[in-house]
């Protein structure tokens, strides 16, 4: 299991290619990449704040839970903090398993929990100013699926 919290950019392709490479029992790898979205075409940057002491332990706890629930060969979670440009990855998750159902479900589970239970906060900076991204009820509701 790999958990990284970093200011540096994430090369999702390189991470994917390096993930679960030595496991011969892996038949399915699922990756999720969260990207800084700029729907209005007005986003200058996204600032990610986090809780340094708590972040890695909170993510590790979520990843441990995924490993308990599904038969996974490996799990990867990388989350950035600091200023991010539109179109760049904010974070990525990867899961490896013998079969696709476990890999898909575990990645979906990890994303739902990282979204609402890992201590990160997003602020969007546009020409109109800066504003914290509000949590969505739908994201909290998504946790009830698991």
């Amino acid at each position, binding site marked *: 299991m790999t958990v990284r919290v970093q200011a540096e950019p994430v090369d999702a392709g390189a991470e994917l290619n390096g993930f679960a490479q030595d496991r011969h029992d892996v038949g399915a790898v699922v990756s999720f990449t*969260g990207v800084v979205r700029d729907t209005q075409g007005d986003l200058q940057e996204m600032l990610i*704040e986090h809780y340094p*002491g708590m972040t890695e332990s909170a993510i590790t706890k979520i990843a441990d839970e995924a490993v308990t629930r599904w038969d996974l060969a490996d799990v990867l979670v990388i*989350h950035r903090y600091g200023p991010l440009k539109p179109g760049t990855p904010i974070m990525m998750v990867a899961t490896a398993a013998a079969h696709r159902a476990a890999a898909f479900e575990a990645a979906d589970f990890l*994303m739902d929990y990282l979204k609402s239970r890992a201590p*990160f*906060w997003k602020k969007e900076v546009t020409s109109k100013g800066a504003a914290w991204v509000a*949590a969505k009820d739908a994201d909290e509701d998504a946790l009830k699926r698991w």
Partner: protein
Amino acid sequence: MNVVYFAWVRERIGLPQETVQTDAATVNDLIAELKSREERYAAAFADTSALRVALDQELSDFDAPLAGVTEVAFFPPMTGG
């Protein structure tokens, strides 16, 4: 006790962390104490349903006891991922 703030809670209170001398028994008691001090705390803690709390870096509840706790963190609902 170390008290830390994140996101707009930090911005409203105007600092990322501070040491608070308190005998507050629970998180709610601590909040009441802070709100009575200054307007910026009253503004930050006006609606605790919009807040989350972590005790020693574990998510917790507002009625949780503070005995033995060394770090209390207040922040809005998380928006990771």
